[in-house]
């Protein structure tokens, strides 16, 4: 019963929930967690194919993806601290400081 398709189903559902979180939510923390969820879904896909082809290279790519996610977590959370300190909000619509002249 456990086939390649069922693992692909689970990982595609997780990836889709990540994309929907980036589309639908305005809280910047939830957007960050949705990006992590997308990375996790694709990692599960890679590990499934590593087991399917009995080849370790896909597992090594998954390890590299996890390391990149750790680096991304450090940068993203410090950017969140910076934005929250200057704007006192977690709303993504408030963070428009790069637009020219608008409520500067």
């Amino acid at each position, binding site marked *: 019963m456990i086939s390649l398709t069922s693992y692909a*189903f689970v990982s595609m559902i997780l990836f889709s929930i990540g994309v929907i979180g980036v589309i*639908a939510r305005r809280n910047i923390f*939830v957007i960050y967690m949705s990006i992590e969820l997308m990375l*996790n879904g694709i990692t599960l896909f890679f590990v499934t194919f590593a087991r399917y082809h009995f080849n*370790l290279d896909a597992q*090594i790519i998954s390890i590299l993806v996890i390391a990149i996610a750790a680096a991304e977590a450090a*940068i993203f959370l410090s950017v969140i*601290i*910076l934005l929250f300190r200057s704007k006192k909000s977690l709303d993504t619509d408030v963070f428009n400081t790069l637009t020219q002249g608008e409520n500067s």
Partner: protein
Amino acid sequence: MMADIIFLALSAFAIAGAIAMLTNKSPIYSALGLLITMLSIGGLFALLSASFLFMVQIIVYAGAIMTLILFILMFLNIKEEDLPNEPKKYPLIGLGLILMIPLNILVLKAVSNLPSKDLNITNSDFGDIKPVGIALYNNWLISFELISILLLVALVGSIVLAKRRKPKEKRGEQQ
């Protein structure tokens, strides 16, 4: 049969945690839902006989990154009025659902045409730390070194970004 039940339970936990992350208003409950998802995905890795990745997932994701997220959430002391109100959350979720259905159908159709193989846990040392380390240091050495440089850059960058800026002289005099 046992592996089927474990697979069903773990995938149900993973999807339920992801949905809880998507729909909760408070970010701390979202983080706890994501934690459940991370642990379940670690269990799925173990079911795919990737034991080293199982440990990496538990230690790095469920340990380090989730601790960092929860620490930052508690450190910022987020009140109810800091949260954005999202009146169009559920219509946008429905829109995203409709947008993602064709991609899902495409990928699942492509994957289901592949020949079926046995995906149970193997008795060989596939996915243990020794073969993974041999493959990592033989074939992927440059990527590994570049990842170490990337982590160093991220460390320095996060310190520079989160460092408290010195107040300007004029503002200090006015206060």
